[in-house]
């Protein structure tokens, strides 16, 4: 299917780019063009060749193929018919309006389109009106904004647009693009269910509009919503599902889908970037970094998604690389929220938290709904010991997207800092609900339960166990489990976890105090249990390290030896006695 699939994809995408551009849907057009370029290169020869291929295909299995293609073709055909129906005069007006539109004079564009009846003209008029309202809203936000960009500015056109679009929809005069716009407006008017239905209808009749898919993704806050969607099968749907899985933190599934898409679109930056994000979400930083480097090599002036890259560099403490990235982004485009975020990350890494906050604030000024900036700003406030501000920032992040587990986690951490472990538990619980397979969340919760204020050890043990089961890479949980069991006097279980921890540390070649403690405990435990040989082994291993533990080990060894000698003498005496 790959070559023929690629062929149809190419044809579809080419057409889609044109159609989307004609309607001013630039983001979607950009996306489609990216995928077009990213298609399998084997079939990217001249047009003649592809035509030949096309012909061959038609000869061989035409009927079958046509059957498969029909919905798409029908949609395309519909669009074409509509395109041709405009009269010349209208065409001129449309051209004028498009020119206005392209120079961002939306009101003029909408005005110029007054009275034109074609579907394209109608859509463009609605869209221009909507954008004019958005522009006005943004200006209002600047005028009226409260602290940190909270404001009540609304797009004043929404109500009237909704009314008109709904009346058009009732008479089923809306094409796929109209439905897309209607869906967007419904979403902004908080009518989420209707918006979902509308967007589904839109992508079912015209699947190549990536913006529509993105809107739909934003509405799928819950896996259940996704399952309830009525979506036709199409390759664009695969892109959507993959992207949605990442959004829902089902990263491995998303990754698998992207890998299968990659076979079709080997040169797609979008897939590359999303794969990198998936790796990042899975905390596979090396892979993610490699992918981002690759992405930057192919597309050096890319800013989209680079904030994630900067997060990786931050975690890996690559000062130079991060500063380079920040510098490059500034040169490319200074006033992008991603750029500001990257710079903020850089300053944060340099421990200049005030400056970092400044840049995060700028990012939020540019885009008040920029989720990661809120969360990162919260982190900075925590570093600056400004807990109320941190809580505020995290809370806004959570209100923008309740699935942002980092912000929930941050809230929990902040309250823990305030010595309110019980209060913090609520937030950690939310975080664990979102990432049930993330050991860090469980560790954090365990720490809360274990804190000296709560001292609910059973719950803490349960949490740490979950952490261990979910591959706790930092190895906090094992040690904690062992210590908790020691404190509770359950030595057997403690020994079990100490042993496991030893194994882990040996595998990591981590030889810290924890390691010595574990050895010492195990030595003691084995000695008390009577397995002296084992105890001896543990104690001699402690002797490799300095500090007070060494002395303890020596003392224990002496004890073991004397016991052994005692036993030996006993044994020899017994043997003497038995052999008269």
């Amino acid at each position: 299917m790959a070559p023929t699939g690629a062929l149809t994809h190419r044809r579809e995408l080419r057409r889609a780019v044109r159609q989307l551009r004609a309607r001013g849907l630039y983001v979607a057009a950009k996306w489609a063009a990216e995928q077009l370029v990213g298609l399998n290169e084997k079939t990217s020869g001249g047009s003649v060749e592809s035509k030949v291929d096309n012909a061959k295909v038609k000869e061989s299995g035409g009927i079958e193929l046509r059957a498969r293609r029909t919905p798409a073709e029908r949609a395309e055909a519909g669009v074409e018919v509509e395109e041709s129906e405009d009269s010349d005069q209208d065409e001129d007006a449309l051209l004028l309006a498009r020119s206005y539109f392209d120079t961002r004079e939306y009101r003029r564009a909408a005005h110029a389109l007054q009275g034109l009846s074609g579907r394209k003209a109608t859509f463009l008029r609605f869209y221009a009106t909507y954008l004019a309202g958005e522009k006005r809203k943004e200006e209002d936000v600047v005028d009226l904004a409260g602290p940190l960009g909270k404001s009540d500015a609304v797009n004043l056109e929404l109500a009237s647009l909704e009314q008109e679009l709904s009346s058009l929809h009732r008479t089923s005069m809306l094409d796929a693009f109209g439905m897309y716009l209607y869906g967007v407006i419904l979403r902004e008017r908080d009518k989420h269910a209707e918006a979902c239905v509308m967007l589904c209808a839109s992508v079912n009749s015209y699947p190549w509009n990536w913006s529509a898919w993105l809107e739909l993704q934003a509405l799928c806050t819950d896996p259940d919503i996704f399952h309830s969607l009525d979506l036709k099968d199409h390759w664009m749907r695969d892109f959507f599902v993959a992207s949605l899985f990442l959004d829902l933190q089902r990263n491995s599934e998303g990754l698998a889908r992207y890998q299968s898409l990659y076979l079709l679109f080997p040169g797609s930056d979008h897939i590359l970037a999303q794969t990198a994000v998936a790796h990042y979400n899975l905390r596979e930083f090396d892979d993610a970094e490699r992918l981002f480097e690759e992405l930057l090599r192919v597309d050096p002036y890319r800013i989209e998604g680079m904030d994630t890259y900067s997060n990786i560099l931050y975690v890996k403490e690559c000062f130079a690389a991060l500063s380079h990235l920040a510098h490059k982004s500034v040169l490319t485009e200074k006033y992008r929220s991603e750029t500001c975020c990257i710079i903020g990350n850089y300053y944060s890494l340099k421990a200049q938290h005030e400056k970092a906050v400044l840049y995060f604030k700028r990012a939020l000024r540019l885009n008040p709904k920029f989720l990661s900036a809120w969360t990162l700003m919260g982190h900075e406030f925590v570093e600056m010991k400004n807990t109320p501000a941190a809580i505020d920032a995290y809370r806004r992040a959570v209100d923008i997207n309740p699935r942002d587990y980092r912000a929930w986690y941050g809230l929990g951490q902040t309250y823990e800092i305030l010595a309110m472990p019980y209060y913090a538990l609520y937030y950690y619980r939310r975080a664990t609900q979102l990432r049930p397979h993330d050991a860090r969340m469980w560790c954090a919760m365990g720490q809360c339960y274990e804190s000296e204020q709560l001292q609910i050890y059973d719950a803490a043990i349960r949490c740490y166990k979950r952490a261990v089961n979910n591959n706790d890479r930092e190895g906090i949980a094992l040690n904690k489990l062992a210590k908790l069991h020691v404190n509770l006097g359950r030595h057997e279980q403690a020994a079990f976890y100490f042993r496991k921890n030893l194994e882990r540390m040996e595998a990591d070649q981590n030889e810290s105090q924890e390691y010595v403690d574990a050895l010492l405990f195990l030595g003691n435990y084995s000695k008390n249990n009577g397995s002296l040989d084992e105890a001896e082994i543990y104690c001699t291993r402690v002797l490799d390290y300095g500090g007070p533990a060494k002395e303890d080990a020596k003392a224990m060894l002496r004890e073991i030896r004397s016991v052994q000698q005692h036993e030996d003498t006993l044994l020899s005496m017994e043997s003497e006695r038995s052999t008269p």
Partner: protein
Amino acid sequence: MAGSGGRGFVLTSHKVAMCILMHAYAAPSSASPPFCALPSSARHRLALFLLDQTRVTDGFLEPTFEELGEELKEDLSDVGGMLFEQLGSRLPLLCTPEELFQFFQGLKELLAPASYTSEGGRGDDESLLIQPNSLLGQFLRRCILAFNVLSFEGSGRLVVELNAYRWLESSDPRGIFEDRDDMIEGDVFDDEYEYEEDIGDLSLDGMNDLELRFRGPAGGSRRGLQSGGTDPGRQLGGRSNVAAFPIPHAAILGESGVKTRSLRTVEQVEGFLKEQAGLLEKGVGRMPKEELDANLTQLEKLAPEMVRAHYLRYLNHLQQSDYPATMDDLHRYFDYSAGMGGMSAGGASCDSSVGRFQAGLLSLGSMHAHFGHVDQAMQALNEAVRIAQQYNDDACLAHALAALCHMLFDVGAGNETYAKGESAGLRDVGTGPSLGIQQQLLLLLRRCLRRALELKLPQLVAFSRLALAKFDLKHVRRFSSLGGLENGGQLGTSPLEVCKTLRLSSYLLGDSISNGMSPHTGMSGNHATMNQQRGNNMNGNQPLTAAGNMAGGGGAWTTLTGRLGRTSDTVVKLAGTSHLLRAASWELYGSVPLVRVSALIHATCYADVASSDDVLLSYVKLAQHLAAFRGYAAAQPAFEVAAKRFPAAANSWIRTAQLQLIHDHALHRGELKLAQVACGELAASASPVIGVDMERKTEATFRHIRTLLVSGHLDEAAAVARLLFSSCYKASMQLESVLVLLLLADIHKTADSAVTGLPYALAGLTLCQVFSLDWLQASAKVTLAELWLGLGVGHAPRALLLLQQCLPMVLGHGGLELRARTNLALARCYLSDPSFSAETQMENTLDLLQQAAEEFEILEDFALAGEAYYLQALCFDRWSCVEERNIASKAFQRCMQSLNLAQASENAILPL
């Protein structure tokens, strides 16, 4: 909303209208087209109207033009109508930024200069300039200031809004669209205005547009504009060639409902929120939830910074028992208010951000308590105590302690495991783990009281005193084991102590009210936690809602509305509660009429301030009293009244009381099925958690035993009763155990083994004496007398003696049932006395029997009424009064028939 002049004060169309009215009030003649002079009384009323408008809190949206007009007409009748017309004609004059500027310039002249005195000013031209420091003056100055800091875009927007405001007077959107051509002519800011061809049926070609644009200031009204008239306002507007500013569609359509309506001032909105919160707390289940929800959604859209809306949402969800949503709202509210540290809104909250965290924990604790999550609540409250200690927040600490006490009352009678859990939970509070839960509670209460006294928090002092009294009332104390406390060593209750505490608390309450108690501001704790306190022995899962954070700015608000402060409200509420507690104490210590008096006092004097739970309780008490003295038929209407007053499902108390009554009634009548059902439902209404709601559970079991007793399953009844006794004993519910003892005695009496019953009755009697339960003691004595009687005729004098001992108590304070039982027992004593002389005592005995029979009949206790009639018939027979004997035996027959009928009835449907 047009620009922002200072935080929270936004110049809106409504405020401009207010300013115009103020002009009409202060200097009618100096306005550019002068207002006609008003009579002085009308001016006075206008001033009052304006004052009122600046302070009302009945909503968060400013009234529309039309609403303003209606209010004007309502308040000022004809003058109002005239003013409204003038207002309507004046508003269109303000159609360019320049005119607005002139208008506000003119407003400055309304303010009196420093040298101005109203007497001096009155002479010339009737102008009553406004003192800059008066409330109206402040409002005016704020308006002027807000305009002065307005950017040009801001004033442009205000003009647009003024247009929309005035047009909205027509509620028919078509009317607006008919005006559309007129609006378009001033299409100056084309980026602000976008019109659609296909909405109206008017088509605009260029010519028409042009014609309209330059249409002269000829006559014609705006209404009938279709054919090119202009409105009076255009006369001035046309001058600057900028006729009208276009308005966005959304505003015209009003359908979005957002931009056309503006928020009132921050103070007013907060006042509104506070009021709503109060209503929510008071009127359990009486608020339309959806309406409030919709309101809040709108408010959040308009003013996202109004975090208190989240609090209200929290309360609303709490009332709806929506746990996840409640949790979510609570955390959201406190998260946001934590961040508000420096920039609190409208000066209403002046607490530091730190205080918020404890308040959050406190609310979390009370929320968990409300949902019955005792452990969680304990954890949260403990953490609140700890954080409060950490930040030296004494007030919060005291409140947290009080809330803990309240919690402990609820769990108080919990079983052993619970008590252990609690002592672990109470680790941080500082009591030793070795003490029993009740000792811990006592220590906590004392600590709470001490702290409240130190901090001079009257409501807390009152609360702790009441709680102490309640504790004394309910718990039998053994003082010996507590170091540092009185070393009585004696087991017993202390009615004197209770009485003293109750009296003390009411003195304190009276004092604080008459002193005009300065409202306690800036406290972040939850006052309302305590409001829910009530002195009653049937408290189940009491909702501990917290209005504290809304009440935080009580002081500021009080001065604005001139009402009695919230704190005083709380104290008055507690004063009312003390009466209820008094009722409860009377109920325990012996006087049913005095219970009624106390409940009546509460219902009549405190109904307006008391929390709904308290009011409900007093209603229930009164209804129960009716049942005890007038029979069940009389109680039923009382319950209906109560149910009408509290219609929601939230009134589980009414249901409980009703069920108790139904059960009693059914038992008396002998309808066993019904009794069983009622008893079952009662048991089901208790919380399923072990150790919680012990009182209700005990009561359900108690009633179950009684049902068994009446239905004749004596063995089973005795077995269950013994179990109940031991569990009561374990949970140290001494008062309940006395009841069980007496019940056991009753069971044995019914089983005709008076000998075995005697020890139980005697034990019960002794305990009653020790615990000073006079009424119960009387009842115990009657039971004892009945037992003696059962032992044989020889013991009749002893029984008589016992009965005579308790007669004063029974006649003075007892209810119908006790009285009837005593009468019957007395009669039986006389009759079984060997030295009974027909001549002297017969009349007496017959009288007693007659009374007993009547009383039993009121109670519909046919079995015992039958017995009384039977005895009566026997007497008459012996006295050979045939006619009377026949009457009595007929009555007896009637009773027996009713009894049989009732017993045979399969009726198991509970009346609602």
